[in-house]
């Protein structure tokens, strides 16, 4: 188990390095930050001087190496646009995105699994079929459109919920939370639904199809033949077996929730890292882009690592294979 985790951490580190390399090779196609940083009255000397000062005259591999050198020491450079350390800006913005992603993720997982189980058990029921048809909306409508529709309905027409921003936040030792104020909670509702809807429908459809597959298995028939109650058959026997493949996808989707927060944050002007990234792209703010991409990759890789470790607790067959016993 420990050897396995160490091996996986090693693989994860390699993945991060490669992601960073690819990212750096792309940055020069985004635009030239010098254009934005110097005003109209610039001379060729000014441009060359600034370029050399920022190290932008070097090949991207060298730039990447310098970035890594700093990153290892916790120094992600200084934002070209704001002139402040990137780490500071990210830390300031991260709570907004993480809270949003957390609420969306919890909603997506809870409702996704519950509805998936329901539609699998009541396969031929009217309500189950209505839910399945409705889920097509969640899968097929783009996120920004859902966000705009929700704003139109609940903010513009009904006036119940705010259409943008985080509402009031409370500062808890450097972490600004929206969970403690009424306006903060209200502001969370629409963005988290927008962000989580796709993942919820995806999880629901996956849980349903996996569960239907599991319900066909012999051990489910045998559990029924032993006269176990429906609740025990469906939840103790079927759901647990359903979760093995579902957890993989849930892990990937949690990463996606944080990554795709960009769109939702743009629609709702949510002051998180996604919005920061969009603004950074417009300004070609390379330190911010680089740090953001690394942050997202760390989260993706970390979640996947957690998922793999979770398998050990769910599936005893893996435990036996890895420990080499029996």
């Amino acid at each position, binding site marked *: 188990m420990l050897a396995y985790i160490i091996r996986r951490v090693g693989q994860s580190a390699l993945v991060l390095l490669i992601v960073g390399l690819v990212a750096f090779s792309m940055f020069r196609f985004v635009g030239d930050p010098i254009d934005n940083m110097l005003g109209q009255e610039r001379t060729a000397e000014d441009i060359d001087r600034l370029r050399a000062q920022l190290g932008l005259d070097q090949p991207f591999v060298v730039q990447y190496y310098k970035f890594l050198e700093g990153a290892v020491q916790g120094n992600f450079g200084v934002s070209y646009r704001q002139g402040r350390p990137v780490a500071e800006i990210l830390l300031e913005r991260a709570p907004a995105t993480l809270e949003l992603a957390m609420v969306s993720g919890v909603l997506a997982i809870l409702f996704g699994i519950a509805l998936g189980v329901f539609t699998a058990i009541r396969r031929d029921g009217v309500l189950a079929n209505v839910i399945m048809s409705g889920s097509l909306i969640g899968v097929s409508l783009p996120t920004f459109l859902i966000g705009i529709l929700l704003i139109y309905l609940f903010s513009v027409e009904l006036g119940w919920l705010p259409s943008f921003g985080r509402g009031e936040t409370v500062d808890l030792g450097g972490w600004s939370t929206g969970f403690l104020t009424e306006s903060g909670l209200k502001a969370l509702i629409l963005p988290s639904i927008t962000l989580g809807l796709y993942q919820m429908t995806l999880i629901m459809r996956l849980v349903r199809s996996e569960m239907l597959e599991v319900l066909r298995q012999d051990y489910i028939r*045998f559990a029924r*033949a*032993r006269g176990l109650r429906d609740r025990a058959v469906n939840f103790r026997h079927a759901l647990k077996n359903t979760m093995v493949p579902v957890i993989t996808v849930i892990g990937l989707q949690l990463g996606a929730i944080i990554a795709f927060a960009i769109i939702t944050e743009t629609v709702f002007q949510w002051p998180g890292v996604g919005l920061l990234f969009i603004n950074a792209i417009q300004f070609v703010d390379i330190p911010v882009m680089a740090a953001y991409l690394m942050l997202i990759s760390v989260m993706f890789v970390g979640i996947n690592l957690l998922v793999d470790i979770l398998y050990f607790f769910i599936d005893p067959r893996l435990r036996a294979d890895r420990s080499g016993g029996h």
Partner: protein
Amino acid sequence: MADPVLSIRDLSVEIPTRHGIVRPVDGVSYDIQAGEILGIVGESGAGKSMAGNAVIGLLTPPAHISKGEIWLNGQRIDHLKGDAMRRLRGKEIGMVFQDPLTSLNPLLRIGDQLTETMLTHLPIGRAEAEKRAVAALEEVGIPGAAERVNSYPHEFSGGMRQRVVIALALCAEPSLIIADEPTTALDVSVQAQIIALLRRLCRDRGTAVMLITHDMGVIAEATDRVAVMYAGRLAELGPVRDVLTHPQHPYTHGLMASTPLASQGKSRLHQIPGAMPRLDAVPDGCAFNPRCPYATEKCRQAPVPRVSNGQAACWYPLVDEKVI
């Protein structure tokens, strides 16, 4: 004779399909006494398993019991629904499936699967159930039962898993066991052990057994009486010795003649010409008539008499035709 544990009367199972209604079980009647093993034999699709599923109430819709009665210990059970039927499963009727590799939930310890079954049906506490789980494993011959209750199914071999399955089927002490091809998926050497185990447990407890198989060897070895099924109907029913050595129905005769015997060497095996009819195209009269060497006009038209004990569903039962 005492009242039978299981009594099936004129049972039919129907499945509506696009091409009309098919009847995988058609007017079948038999009894099983306490402590008796009744073998049900026939080809794939002859309705052997379907009848077993009907008894335990696990027919997959749209299949349903369309006619007849099922009596268990003097209680009629064919019309029981939902929770009333569930209470009988495991408690009064145990079932053993064909493939022990897929019958056990891979994610639950076998001890947990045993205790959950007992706690569902018996008025006992967890501690008592755990004690009985160990005893149940010991009884089916699992070495080191006290430790093995904490093992997962994948830590057992196929034969050991089938022992676990049998322990699970018997742990709430049912009066009837339906064993659906319990040895088909096992090695030959293990088959005999499992059959012997099933026989011993059922004799000791007086459990009635419906042993579904297509293996004549298993039938000869394990059963007291045998019912031969063909195209959903009972072709012949009788004491195992009579049926195997003096089959009266031409189908049973053909079946016996096509069973390879080690003593026969490499001689050419007998074959029954043709194939069992599809269930949506069962011929009029006797279902076996197109393949029967003795068929007459009467066999092609008049429905054959249904069997009760010790006779064949045939207008012209074979007499004194020794097979082996």
